[in-house]
């Protein structure tokens, strides 16, 4: 039997391992909502009802995939991320909290919230209640969304520095964190590492509002940002240029401390696809984003053994030739429910050049609203389609959400266990 690290490595080389490798929780887009983690742990007999689960990503309220759960499911990949989360505070010194669905959870000490009169919950950057809130969870909701802190834009006063505040040279403390964590994971587990070093995602709309900054300036509104990519393209290009320079310098330093312990580096999470087609034109991708993707990926391939990982939701088939040409090795989340994203077409046309990390089961329809039998059928089909010949890491299409029947989650992992072995049947 292979180790997890070997299994993932073989899959990334487009060969068949002993079984299809499994990711759950190695990134903020391949995880599971804390409510579902809690239910799953109880069903697997790992926890008694009422046992709190840690929230390791407070924005999307993702639950911790602890070693016992990894063992129970056969998870092969773990996350190597920075010391701070989306809201800019560290995941440490845990305290109890209860979310709207009544799930007892543990949150970091700086997870400081305030209720609104209408029942919504507000969250603060770095947990600092002396500044305006940066996150809001609507009453009864399951996640936070960014509070948009956008001053009216005066084109004469726009400064590159304002949109670069969150992109800084990496500190010695953070470098030390990456060195220690990479060493710990590499020596104490047999798992493959998916690393998120940050700073190389250009125009990621989840990060533009800067929920971790106390007083963000520049272009921070979601609509304002998209408008700017069309109306102020030269300005946005210059932001990316500077960001790329900072990001590459950081990667060089990080590589010196983590070496080649990393299997894949999460380079970008910018969504280029919508449900019915690309979010932007392929030409806009080539003009505004691709030059920087090429620069980052070239550096990675020239200096490391890391595979380059791109996350983009939606219908991106029209852009896949460009993604591959830009040097990406891995595509996630493989949203087959979007237009033109038929699994067989994707595998036939691009399967020899890019690894599909995701697409194991649909999370818009099948997992939340289907029957366990429908889940089993789809997982078997996807295993066969994407898994043949390797080049596939099993993961749901994006995070497993809240309000998912636990029977469907169990059906997914049971099917993977029963039918995920090579040769695939």
């Amino acid at each position, binding site marked *: 039997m292979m180790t997890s690290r070997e299994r993932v490595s073989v899959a990334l080389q487009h060969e068949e391992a002993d079984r299809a490798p499994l990711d759950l929780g190695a990134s903020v887009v391949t995880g599971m909502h804390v409510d579902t983690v809690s239910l799953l742990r109880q069903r697997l007999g790992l926890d008694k009802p009422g046992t709190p689960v840690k929230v390791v990503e407070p924005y999307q309220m993702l639950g911790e995939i602890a070693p016992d759960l990894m063992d129970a499911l056969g998870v092969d990949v773990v996350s190597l991320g920075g010391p701070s989360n989306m809201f800019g505070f560290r995941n440490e010194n845990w305290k109890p909290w209860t979310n709207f669905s009544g799930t007892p959870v543990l949150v970091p000490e700086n997870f400081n919230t305030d209720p609104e009169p209408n029942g*919504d919950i507000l969250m603060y950057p770095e947990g600092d209640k002396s500044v305006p809130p940066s996150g809001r969870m609507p009453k009864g*909701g399951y996640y936070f969304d960014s509070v948009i802190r956008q001053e009216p834009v005066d084109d004469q006063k726009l400064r590159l520095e304002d949109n670069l505040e969150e992109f800084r040279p990496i500190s010695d403390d953070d470098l030390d964190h990456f060195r220690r964590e990479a060493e710990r994971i590499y020596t104490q587990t047999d798992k493959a590492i998916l690393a998120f070093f940050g700073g190389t995602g250009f125009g990621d709309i989840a990060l533009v509002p800067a929920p971790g900054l106390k007083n963000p300036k520049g272009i921070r509104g979601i609509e304002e940002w998209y*408008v700017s990519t*069309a109306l102020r393209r030269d300005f946005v290009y210059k932001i990316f240029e500077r960001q790329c320079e900072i990001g590459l310098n950081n990667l060089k330093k990080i590589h010196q401390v983590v070496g080649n312990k990393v299997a894949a580096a999460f380079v970008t999470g910018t969504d280029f696809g919508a*449900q*019915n*087609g690309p979010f932007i034109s392929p030409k806009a991708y080539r003009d505004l984003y691709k030059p920087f993707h090429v620069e980052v990926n070239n550096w990675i391939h020239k200096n490391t053994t890391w595979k380059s990982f791109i996350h983009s939701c939606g219908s991106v088939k029209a852009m896949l030739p460009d993604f591959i040409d830009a040097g990406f090795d891995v595509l996630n989340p493989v949203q087959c429910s979007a237009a033109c994203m038929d699994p067989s077409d994707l595998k036939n046309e691009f399967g020899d050049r890019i690894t599909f990390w995701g697409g194991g089961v649909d999370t*818009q329809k099948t997992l939340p*609203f289907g029957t366990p039998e429908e889940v089993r059928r789809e997982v078997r089909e996807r295993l066969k389609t994407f898994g043949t010949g390797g080049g596939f890491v099993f993961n749901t299409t994006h995070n497993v959400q809240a309000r998912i029947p636990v029977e469907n989650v169990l059906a997914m992992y049971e099917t993977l266990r029963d039918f995920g072995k090579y040769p695939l049947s």
Partner: protein
Amino acid sequence: MSIFEELQQVIIDGKAPVAKEITDKGLKEGVKPSEFFPKAIIPAMDEVGRRMRDCEFFIPEVLIAARAARAATDILRPLLLGDEAMKPAGTVVLGTVKGDLHDIGKNIVGMMLESAGFRIIDLGVDVSPEKIVNAVKQHNANFIALSALLTTTMVNMKAVVDALNAAGLRDAVKILVGGAPVTDAWAHSIGADGYGKDAPSAVELARKFVSAA
């Protein structure tokens, strides 16, 4: 090029400041406010919708065109109050459903419906069924357009249908639904009247219901 052709072109190109200038200039030259809609704004946004459908325009292009259209309509609307020639094609109560804070898609639908001559009552995001029922009553609306991005919130569309039934208003309105996880089958299953896969489809659907009425 006529002033209407000029305005059409700058809306399609997304040049809001120029759209404002041309509209002002036209008004000074004696163009009736109501003329801008059938001769410039509606055809411009129809063309934007066509380009979106045919994958010539994407989200950023649609947003800047809608902003340019709005620059013109913001000047014209106050001048049209009480103008019988400008009776809206219909009144649409618009919102993102309870528990959901996402509004890019909803806003694009609102801007395109508005540019197509509909009156929009935009209730924003995280809107409760009660608030929608009240707005329908208050504004005598004949359409409701609901958006949801999340699988955890799309279920709240059904609550709106139920609330309208309970208030005896279900037959007074057509309910249009949309958003990433929403499908035609879903719309049918919750008893909505139509599903729009994108903003141009929503406009087409609303027009179809208007002409059938």
